[in-house]
């Protein structure tokens, strides 16, 4: 008998694994049928999950932490046993603004620290305080943008205006001059570049080389009460993710996601992020970035607790939550490596032996201890070289220069 699951998502390229699980038969092999519910705002996606209108959601990882900590409307304990992707964001700015930065795009993107300083200088030359669109206060994009700006002494709450708007409205708002740039998941940055409105200023993957992005989030209660269904879903997703990472499948995947029921944008724009061939200024050749968006390799789906805690550290840093041992514990517990391990115990998926790691310590691909198979972790550096030790959050936070 087939079990039907309702899963809410936003039209973004990184819904790929869920779409493929349903459309290419991976869910069916596990006796599941996924009813993917297209949603236009993170608030509505959150409400559908929290109030039980869907069983799971394609959710911004920081939003899952924030809902659990009671920072985003109705508090609810959420659980994320699976990461849908890492990376996949870009910061694009209006062409006039970007004119103050290094005109050589390859150089600009390869040196996020230098570009952050150029950006800081450009703020004073701009006709107003730059207005930068972010998709949500509790998005990985907003946290990475804040981290990046602050590295050059820019206070994101004082020196720029961060305006929240959903990904699907970013290009229109840029066109209307309501914002001067935005950071969002693909394909929206590419859409703005393609329209000749903006160029790429920073790539998420260059800010944090393996940045947490979307997770599969459940209500914790529901997840605990339905272990068998959860396990089946995770097994289907792991196989779908491997399919998504396979270069030979990128064109078919782009065509699938281009459909109106998913992203509803041109397949060519979507394919760029999948293949890691980003066009950063209209009409120019793509600059290859094979790690632009990852679904499967390097145990991408594994929900490292240390990553939930990094998110928590940033919420503390920006004054969004008061630091306490209890809050830290609740935030860390949102990521559920134990459930991931249980679900995939019988599979050939390489399984990390630990549940936490130093974040930002891997400089080049590194073979690590794994319960089975070979596991190589990709480089996960932050561009400023800082290392996050999840056991020492206070020291980590004390290491940042106070901006005010």
């Amino acid at each position, binding site marked *: 008998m087939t079990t039907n699951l309702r899963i809410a998502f936003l039209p973004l390229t990184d819904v790929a694994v869920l779409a493929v699980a349903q459309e290419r038969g991976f869910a069916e092999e596990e006796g599941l049928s996924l009813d993917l519910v297209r949603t236009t705002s993170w608030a*509505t996606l959150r409400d559908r999950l929290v109030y039980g209108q869907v069983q799971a959601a394609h959710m911004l990882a920081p939003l899952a932490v924030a809902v659990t900590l009671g920072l985003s409307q109705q508090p609810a304990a959420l659980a994320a046993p699976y990461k849908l992707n890492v990376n996949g964001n870009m910061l694009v700015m209006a062409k006039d603004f970007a004119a103050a930065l290094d005109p050589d795009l390859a150089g600009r993107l390869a040196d996020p620290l230098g570009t952050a300083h150029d950006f800081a200088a450009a703020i004073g030359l701009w006709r107003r305080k730059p207005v930068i669109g972010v998709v949500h206060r509790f998005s990985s994009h907003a946290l990475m943008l804040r981290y990046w700006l602050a590295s050059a002494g820019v206070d994101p709450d004082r020196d720029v205006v961060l305006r929240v708007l959903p990904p699907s409205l970013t290009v229109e708002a840029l066109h209307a001059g309501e914002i001067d740039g935005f950071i969002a998941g693909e394909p929206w940055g590419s859409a703005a570049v393609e329209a000749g409105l903006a160029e790429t200023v920073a790539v998420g993957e260059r800010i944090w080389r393996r940045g947490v992005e979307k997770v599969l989030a459940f209500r914790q209660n529901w997840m605990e009460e339905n272990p068998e269904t959860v396990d089946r879903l995770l097994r289907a997703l792991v196989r779908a993710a491997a399919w998504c990472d396979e270069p030979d499948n990128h064109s078919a995947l782009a065509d699938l996601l281009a459909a109106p029921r998913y992203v509803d944008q041109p397949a060519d724009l979507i394919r760029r992020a999948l293949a890691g061939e980003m066009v950063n200024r209209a009409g120019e050749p793509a600059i290859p970035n094979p790690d632009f968006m990852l679904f499967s390799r390097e145990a991408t789906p594994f929900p490292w607790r240390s990553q939930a805690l990094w998110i928590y550290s940033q919420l503390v840093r920006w004054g969004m939550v008061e630091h306490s041992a209890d809050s830290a514990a609740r935030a860390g517990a949102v990521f559920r490596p134990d459930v991931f391990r249980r679900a995939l115990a019988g599979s050939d998926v390489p399984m990390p032996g630990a549940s936490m790691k130093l974040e930002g310590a891997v400089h080049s691909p590194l073979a690590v201890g794994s319960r089975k198979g070979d596991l190589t972790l990709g480089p996960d550096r932050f561009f400023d070289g800082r290392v996050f030790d999840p056991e020492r959050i206070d020291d980590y936070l004390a290491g940042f220069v106070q901006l005010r």
Partner: protein
Amino acid sequence: MEFGHSMRIVIIDDSGLRATVLEEGLREAGYDDIHIVPPRGAFVARLERMAPDVVLMDLGSPSRDTLEEMLSVSRALARPIAMFVDQSDEAMIGAAIDAGVSAYVVDGLRKERVKPVLELAVRRFNAFARIQAELDEARNALSDRKVIDRAKSILMAQRNLSEQDAYTLLRSSAMNQGKKIVDVAQALITASDLLGGGL
């Protein structure tokens, strides 16, 4: 409804018709301090000046994130919270979400005062959805007729048929192929365009 009059309700909606349907319902129920704000441009600043007690918004509006952000940082407003009235009333929450209504209510406003507003909003949003569906149906019927008319004129011109015979031919082809007349008509038009029949 003696306490209805002091409650300021703002409806954020870019579908003029739905907002009107909702506003009428609220006025009939005795609420008279109602404002409609489309979620465009500087709508957030307008909303702050209005200082509403209740904000109603389409759950499907992409601007919900923008609104919530503003509500969470605004110093001018008394922290309205997202609400489906009684958080323990699952049927009510389900009805509101199904109807596509979200409400933000100033913290501290009594539940009993807000509940009728939200119930009314749910009913009106549902009514609107029905009207919308009927309109779409009517529009489709109209465009179907245009397609069939065009196919008829192609047949009349190219095969020297009367209008009635052209229609009969379309209908019998549709029946033979197990298709709708409009689909057969559309195929005929496409073929005629491709072959340069030009009509």
